[in-house]
């Protein structure tokens, strides 16, 4: 049994990281492999998933032709990879070979399944998987079906045993009498008892690997839910042993039904044909692809480093300004910030993760389910609830009615006649008039609809076991952390905007992928509002000044807002409280925002193919809004497409530079952080988050059919938590084709402006972060402002690069 655990744990590393859709996050899809160097991990996962972690050779050849791959860098890479002339030439020939027009990189290779299928003359997967998938999706169903599978709360194995043994009807082909023997055993015992009946001991590991990976979406899902049961609102308990036990019972029963004389598979039967060491690619090909891919990435990195170095001499720092704004680090904000800065010299933008340092759960009302509004790995101890909520309560009633209606068969029959009439009008409106009747203004001042109780007076105020609100000290601590990490502890402008972000899409199951990742995929406006309310509180300002050294002048007012990245509109809250100078500043900000949003919309329209090139900015704005509301638009916005950089440092070093919406920005001032504490906090969040986003897009672009989710058109929402193709298939992992088709698959590069010693101390001090960096899952560049040198991390160390040349 211990062997069994080892086998399962060995394969579990390769299971994809898939979460329920309403809690979707961009994460490294293969987190278990992070302790391995990147290319080794890619090679191993290629063998397991039988997919290739490369684009087709034609992609690289086109990049070479267009100059996106620098020939010198390519040469240097080839020389670094192969020592002698002959292998270098082999690599060059492979790169230049003729490309095919089609590219099907994924194949499945399961020797034991293939052998058994030939023995019984039927495809074993086709026999077991439909029933197994149906059982799994019924078990995990969060509310699609009208009633749940009996005993769903007792675990998958028990639920299955109940279905088979405690019913008047059999489940074909399972033998009820035989299963009764296993009724009281735990799944892991069942697996260890059944395993010798299918395969001999030597093949056990291979068999378990095949069983888990042939339904990799479901296996990954089971594993993740097992690690974090709270991800599902209606909890379910199952682990990989439940899955294996059920699968083996079904398989054995099918095998025995068709061929009763089946004997366990022995290694010698598998023979050379089945077990030959299959390499997905030959050694030379692997080297060639790796070399050209590295060259592709490094060309871009080199361009950026040179660009930033040239700009460093022009960098001017703005000390005093009249408007400041905080934005999320999201790469979709970087173009908006740039447009705003072009219009106004007295404006300064800071970037910090969109939860603005605040970690809390949010509840709309007493009976609502608590929503997390902070990054996924953080587990908050606080919960904020709506104070008033007439609107909210009214909406509650509507949703409750919608949810519980039509339980009566005859009422549903009767109502169905009339639902049809209603849907005729809905369809006409949705298809021909997506924006209904008007195009909303791009920037609007409004009263915010929600009001939460932020502060608590005593520790007795709790709800669901969490503190109902912050104390002043706790809140001030969080604010201080944010201000210090971005380097703003004095010289506050009279008006500071805190802008969160969200995204409105219609008919899109991946809507949380577009939302603010720092707020767990939700709307960032709440965090912005809470932050600004806390920062406006005089007692907080006193604590900040006395205990943390952050001087906020009395004249400064914080205002919150939210940017809808899909529609490119901004809503600013509670401006009517301002007067005089502040109101004028707010007006000026909103005028500039309007112009910037229109420019941003036009910039984004360059990606939408069926849009004419000479579109005006206001037309572009109307177009983005229409796309957000159309039920038939599978590409409402392109999200984090083409993300490739994360720049940590003062805005002065990048102000005025255009990164083509490819950079995550994070404000940081090394001068006030001599020990690197704030750098640790920043990188501890930024590396997993930005690295996760980047890797998610990377895999989904490279192999959209194997590890990505394929085209959105045939998607079918399953169990309210996941997506599959049609009704009989495995779950789909990763992102859909329509989200990643324009992405440039390269690993993210962090460019951090800090002294090398501090950076190395921070990275090496945290094993998790060091794994990311040392194994080159993310690339690192350090711009040392004191020594005035640039270092690039490769081959296990930071090496100095001169003149910006990476080779």
């Amino acid at each position, binding site marked *: 049994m211990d062997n069994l655990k080892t086998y399962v744990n060995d394969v579990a590393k390769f299971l994809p990281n898939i979460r329920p859709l*309403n809690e979707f996050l961009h994460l490294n899809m293969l987190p278990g492999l992070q302790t391995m160097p990147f290319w080794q991990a890619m090679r191993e996962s290629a063998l397991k998933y039988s997919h290739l972690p490369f684009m087709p050779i034609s992609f690289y050849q086109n990049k070479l032709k267009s100059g996106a791959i620098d020939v010198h860098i390519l040469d240097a890479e080839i020389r670094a990879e192969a020592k002698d002339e002959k292998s270098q030439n082999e690599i060059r020939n492979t790169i230049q070979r003729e490309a095919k027009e089609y590219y099907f990189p994924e194949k499945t290779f399961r020797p034991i399944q293939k052998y058994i299928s030939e023995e019984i003359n039927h495809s074993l997967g086709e026999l077991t998987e439909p029933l197994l998938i149906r059982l799994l999706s019924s078990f995990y169903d969060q509310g699609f079906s009208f009633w749940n599978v009996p005993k769903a709360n007792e675990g998958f194995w028990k639920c299955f045993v109940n279905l088979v043994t405690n019913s*008047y009807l059999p489940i074909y082909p399972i033998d009820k009498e035989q299963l009764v023997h296993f009724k009281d055993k735990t799944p892991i015992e069942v697996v260890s008892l059944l395993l010798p009946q299918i395969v001999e001991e030597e093949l056990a590991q291979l068999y378990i690997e095949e069983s888990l990976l042939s339904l990799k979406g479901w296996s990954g899902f089971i594993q993740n839910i097992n690690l974090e049961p709270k991800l599902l609102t209606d909890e379910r308990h199952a682990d990989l042993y439940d899955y294996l036990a059920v699968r083996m019972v079904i398989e054995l029963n099918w095998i025995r039904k068709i061929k009763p004389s089946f004997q366990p598979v022995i290694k010698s039967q598998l023979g050379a044909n089945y077990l030959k060491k299959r390499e997905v690619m030959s050694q030379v090909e692997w080297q060639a692809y790796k070399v050209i891919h590295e060259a592709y990435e490094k060309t871009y990195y080199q361009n950026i480093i040179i660009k930033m170095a040239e700009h460093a001499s022009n960098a001017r720092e703005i000390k005093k300004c009249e408007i400041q704004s905080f934005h999320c680090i999201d790469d979709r904000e970087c173009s908006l910030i740039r447009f705003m800065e072009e219009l106004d010299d007295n404006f300064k933008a800071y970037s910090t993760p969109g939860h603005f340092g605040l970690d809390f759960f949010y509840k709309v009302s007493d009976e*609502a389910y608590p929503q997390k509004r902070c990054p996924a790995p953080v587990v908050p101890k606080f919960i904020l609830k709506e104070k008033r909520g007439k609107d909210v309560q009214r909406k509650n009633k509507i*949703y409750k009615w919608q949810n519980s209606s039509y339980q009566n068969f005859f009422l549903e029959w009767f109502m169905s006649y009339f639902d049809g009439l209603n849907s005729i009008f809905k369809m006409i409106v949705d298809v021909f008039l997506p924006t209904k009747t008007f195009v909303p203004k791009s920037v609007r001042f409004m009263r915010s609809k929600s009001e939460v109780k932020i502060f608590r007076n005593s520790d007795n105020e709790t709800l669901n076991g969490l503190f109902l609100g912050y104390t002043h000290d706790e809140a001030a601590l969080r604010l201080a952390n944010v201000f210090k990490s971005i380097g703003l502890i004095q010289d506050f402008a009279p008006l500071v905007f805190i802008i969160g972000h969200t995204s409105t899409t219609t*008919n899109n199951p991946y809507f949380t992928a577009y939302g603010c990742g720092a707020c767990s995929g939700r709307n960032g406006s709440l965090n912005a509002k809470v932050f600004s309310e806390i920062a406006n509180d005089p007692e907080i300002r006193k604590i900040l000044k006395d205990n943390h050294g952050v001087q906020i002048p009395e004249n400064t007012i914080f205002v919150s807002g939210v940017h809808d990245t899909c529609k490119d509109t901004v809503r600013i809250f509670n401006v009517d409280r301002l007067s005089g100078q502040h109101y004028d500043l707010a007006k000026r900000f909103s005028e500039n925002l309007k112009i910037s949003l229109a420019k941003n919309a036009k910039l984004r329209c360059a990606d939408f193919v069926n849009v004419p090139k000479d579109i005006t900015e206001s037309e572009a704005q109307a177009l983005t809004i229409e796309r957000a509301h159309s039920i038939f638009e599978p590409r409402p916005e392109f999200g984090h497409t083409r993300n490739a950089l994360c720049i940590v440092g003062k805005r002065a070093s990048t102000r005025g530079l255009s990164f083509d919406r490819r950079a995550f920005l994070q404000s940081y001032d090394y001068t006030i952080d001599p020990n690197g504490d704030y750098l640790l906090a920043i990188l501890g969040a930024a590396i997993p988050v930005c690295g996760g986003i980047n890797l998610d897009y990377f895999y989904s672009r490279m192999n959209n059919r194997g590890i990505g989710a394929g085209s*959105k058109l045939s998607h079918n929402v399953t169990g309210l938590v996941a997506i599959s193709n049609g009704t009989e298939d495995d779950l789909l992992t990763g992102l859909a084709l329509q989200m990643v088709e324009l992405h440039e698959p390269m690993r993210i590069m962090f460019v951090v402006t800090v002294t090398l010693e501090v950076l190395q101390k921070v990275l090496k001090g945290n094993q998790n972060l060091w794994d990311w960096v040392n194994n080159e899952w993310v690339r690192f560049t350090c711009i040392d402002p004191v020594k005035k040198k640039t270092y690039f991390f490769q081959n296990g160390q930071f090496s100095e690069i001169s003149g910006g040349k990476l080779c």
Partner: protein
Amino acid sequence: MLINYLFLAYLVPFMALIVLLVKKYSESTIQRISFISVVIPFLSSAALVVDYFLYKRGVREISLFEIAYGEHHFSFNLFVDKLSLSILFLTSSLTLLVIKFSHTYLHKEPGYQRFFRTVSLFLCGLYLLALAGTLDLFFAGWEMVGLSSFMLIAFYRDRTRPVKNALRIFSIYRLCDLGLLFGAIIGHLLWEDANHFLTFLSEGRNLHEYVDYNWVHLVGFLLMFSAIGKSAQFPFINWPARAMEGPTPSSAIFYGGLSIHCGVFLLYRTYPIWSHSYLVVYALTGVGLLTALLATGIGRIQPNIKGQLAYLSVAHIGIMFIELAWGFHNLVIFHFLTHSFFRCYQILTSPSSIVDHVKVIDATSNITIKKAIENWLPMKLRTTIYSFALQEGFLSISERGFFPLPFVQIKLWMRKVFRSYITFAVVPVIAYYLAHWQGHTETHQVVAYMLGLLDLVLSASCLTSLKNPNTIWNRFLATQILFMASAFIFKAHSYHGVILYSISAIPCWVLGKYALMQFTNVDMKKFNGLYITNPKKSNLFFIAFLGMSGFPFFTTFWGEDVIFAEMLLEGPVLLTMTALSMMFNGLISARILTKVFWGFPSYIKY
């Protein structure tokens, strides 16, 4: 009447189909073509509906032309009543909305032109079905709808599951088409003027006066069988869930809106015939009720949105069958109009179901304690019902648990049988006794029986054989020759049908042979996906497939009709045998098409 010129608008999808076949266009051109091809029929339908209500027109028939061929005559005419207008209006408005939806939804999808072309074909078929004046024309439209359904389920030809499911569903369509084919033939018997629907109405009332009641029962059951297959009633309720493999808009039009109601249309049209038969009325009610209960029961536990919508759709059609059986015509029309829009809209917006769920759980946390009546039952009964619904009422062929006919076991048995030559020795003996039993003792008739039975046996062996496709295709030629020979010998002066049939059959066979010639090593146990590396051959074989399976644009369809109509009176057993082998034709060619050319191309290296 001037208003009748509006019917010319329904030729527009046909023109769009031809245009989209000629060459590859840009997306914006395709959008314009497809939009015109749905807007013009919509305007025309709206005008016709207004005209119908304004002038209180009743039922009318519009004769187009008649072709006399041998002893047979084909009449092409249109029959317009409130059902026709409802179908026309429903189809044109629904397709207008869904086509507009698809313009942006399918953007950049490989197969853009193929999608709109197939939808145009579907529209041709459905308009023909709506306006058909005779059962033959209705059958032609029916076939076109079935074929476009097959093509759209397998839209993603490079994945195995859509292709496999498409083949399975095409088999069900083919099986149930037999009912309609026989119904059409028997219709020729019952009425001399080629079973016009107008005649059904006028003469139908007096049917029992001059036709033996047994014929009425038989025709009724045959038509019911056909409607059951197309509309997914008991025992075929599982296929719509399997058919949700295509793009969402196509699933919405077909299985939410239009194609799945075709059974209802058929029954409505032929109401004057079968309504006389109390057996059929009760059977329809039983089937409808059973389907409604079973499909609702299965649909209630479906954890995925498209599967659930498919089953609930089927349940509603069961109710429509009941309504129709008892003569509530206006209610049926109202029901299918509203149901189509409703289901279509639900399927189109199915990806947003997660958003709705999130809104609900933000509002209230007790989401899943739904008060379903099943939760009040004792545990063992609850588990039994769940287990029954989970296995889809044991009606699913894929799990070998299909009561009462285990298809897979039959297939394996057939393979064993056809491998031995004893089978081919036994055939003449059986044929001899069959012929004598039917009273056909003359030599040429007995020979015809032998050829017919041999044809059937060979067809069945082609269907299940695992040999390489060239061998199967050669054997297929043998079956065609046997069929034509058997028909010709049985009634020597009925050569007209045989000639008409062979005009298409032989060239199509030759085309198929040319396309298949190089593929001698293909494994027929799996889907090979050769269309990627051999696109031209794949298209040629597709045309051959259309010809051999009796697509209405080829004369094989009309030739079959003539042959069967002429053989009917004298040789019903022979007719059954040859008709069965004709049904197999479509399956054989579809099987070769999907196994050889479609599917995941695992032979391609990166």
